[in-house]
């Protein structure tokens, strides 16, 4: 064929092994490319993207206050991120962390409002357990049809988000509304005993310890326990898990319960440590960010902690640019863009880019 020497054919060639550096570079480069991509939209409004990103960085990491706020925001992200990562490990697409967070907040609030006189060493762990249970149940609900009827959990978990948020709205606009709250959708404030202690003199509360502990426990479970092994096998191949005698159905239920429970705890830490009451809109989408965090972190518990910190910074940075005319939605754009670059970049983990001329011999 004449003239074909000028045609190049780009091909993806399967790799036999993946160099370590690629596993690290792919998420990193995706973040950078995501920033560049959204930078174009920012430039479209006439502002300099570098200036805006600078403002965000300043706001998040440039001062002691900023840093502490970043840590504060990272606490619910760590917890929901861990929950989502656990479920994803079993190829259970838990998109319902947001709703599970709200239901966890509901459970903790129920205890706090009904037993305000319990001493803190009883009330706080109690609230933790309640939130784990209510969040866990919210994760268990879609798990049951998934386990027994193979109903797609992506849709059911997501739809339950809306239901969970509406349930909390119902409570704070209705039966649990604070009569002294000037008709705002908030409950009465929690008693002293129901509030998580502060670390230092910032807003950073003991929820941080809970988050880090959860990461440690999850790491140990996944790496060293039999259950963790079963999760890894089940996530890779349900057929192999069944073949090996593992109780695949029990694991689906258990993992979704724990996943929802972790997100539920995130809800508890928010109402107990930050808002100190239940109110409308306690989460600016932590549950959705958790998905991106889990994916970027490649489902590794330590990476989840690290990436949660970064995303906390992203949120705080987002607040600092609101006065420059960029709504909170900008942060969601950035997160979404980073995720689809990460997702796209993953092909480089399994395949290598090659090119050669089309037609003719080499």
């Amino acid at each position, binding site marked *: 064929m004449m003239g074909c020497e000028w045609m190049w054919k780009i091909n993806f060639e399967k790799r036999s092994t993946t160099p370590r550096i690629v596993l690290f570079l792919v998420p990193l480069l995706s973040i950078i490319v995501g920033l560049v991509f959204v930078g174009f939209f920012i430039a479209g409004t006439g502002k300099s993207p570098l200036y805006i990103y600078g403002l965000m960085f300043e706001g998040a990491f440039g001062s002691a206050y900023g840093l502490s706020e970043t840590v504060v925001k990272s606490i619910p992200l760590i917890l929901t991120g861990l929950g989502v990562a656990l479920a994803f490990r079993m190829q259970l697409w838990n998109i319902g962390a947001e709703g599970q967070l709200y239901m966890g907040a509901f459970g903790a609030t129920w205890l706090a409002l009904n037993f305000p006189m319990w001493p803190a060493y009883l009330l706080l762990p109690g609230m933790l357990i309640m939130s784990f249970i209510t969040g866990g149940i919210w994760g268990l609900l879609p798990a049951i049809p998934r386990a027994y009827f193979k109903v797609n959990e992506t849709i059911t978990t997501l739809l339950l988000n809306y239901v969970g948020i509406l349930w909390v709205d119902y409570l704070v606009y209705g039966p649990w509304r604070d009569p002294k709250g000037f008709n705002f959708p908030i409950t009465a404030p929690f008693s002293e005993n129901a509030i998580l202690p502060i670390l230092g003199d910032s807003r950073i509360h003991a929820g941080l310890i809970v988050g880090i502990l959860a990461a440690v426990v999850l790491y140990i479970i996944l790496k060293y326990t039999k259950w963790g092994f079963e999760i890894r096998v089940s996530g890779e191949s349900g057929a192999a898990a069944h073949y090996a005698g593992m109780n695949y159905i029990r694991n689906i239920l258990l993992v979704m319960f724990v996943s929802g429970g972790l997100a539920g705890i995130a809800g508890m830490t928010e109402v107990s440590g930050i808002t100190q009451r239940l109110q409308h809109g306690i989460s600016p989408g932590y549950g959705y960010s958790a998905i991106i965090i889990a994916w970027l972190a490649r489902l590794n518990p330590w990476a989840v902690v690290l990436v949660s910190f970064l995303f906390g910074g992203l949120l705080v940075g987002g607040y600092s640019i609101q006065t420059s005319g960029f709504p909170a939605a900008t942060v969601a754009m*950035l997160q*979404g863009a980073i995720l689809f670059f990460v997702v796209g970049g*993953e092909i480089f983990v399994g395949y290598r880019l090659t090119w050669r001329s089309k037609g003719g011999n080499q």
Partner: protein
Amino acid sequence: MEQSLLTAIFATGIIAGTPILFAALGEILSEQAGVLNLGVEGMMLVGAVTGFMITMETNNQWLGLLAAIGAGGLMALIHAFLTITLRANQVVSGLALTIFGTGLSGYLGQTLIGKPLQATFKAVPIPGLSQIPWVGPSLFQHDLLVYLGYIGVAVCWFVLYRTKAGLKIRAVGENPSAADAAGVNVFAIRYVCVVLGGMLAGLGGAYLSLAYAPSWLENMTAGRGWIAVALVIFATWNPTKAFLGSWLFGVVDILGFHLQNLGITVSSFFLKMLPYVITIVVLIIVSRETKKRHVASPGALGIPYNREER
């Protein structure tokens, strides 16, 4: 009184169901070709805000509509590139686009919230047909986009089940390797179906902002994109069943309004929960049924195709 109440329910159900219908038709095309598109919600929102924005600028709702279709298609192009060429995980790619689309629509629409719009799609009764008792007011006294929806269902069904193109689409979704061996361009078909799906999603979103509401509010789709995805499953990937399903959801959606008229008061929050809960319940029931009847999703749904995979 009976007739007017029933036809009112029917009619409002059709209107409320139209955005879901468009999105569902798009998703059917995409999934029949084997690609799962979970970015529908984001694409609808981007369509809604783009349609509103351009209509504001040009005072022409048709231009706005075209812009919305284009925006949805462009977003779907990203999804197609990621999942078909780069063989990325289809679930997460779709999610990424929903998150991005939600953010983008909020970003673009910040100055448009609550602004009134003059150039909208108004009701156009079809002469003759709209006079038929019962059926007329239910089906034929709506705006042009609703009629477009009817046509869309028919076209979609016809293409899928009566043309060679439809045969190819279904082959690609069921067994891409067989389609490839038959000389069908698997990549091209998948790209086209995904982009068309996004365009239809954009159309559905624009319906909300240009006809249904009509206005722009952040997150105004409120999960309709997800309901559309669920709808495709219990319509077993069939356009005519999707039409029925979308109408059913339309009715549930506006149930609260009708109940109020009848003097029945239920907390608005529970009414709002109803569409989501019902979707979940129906999904479970239908999944149990299909398991028994061995009707399955397109065989290769969600799996990237690679010719040289050993």
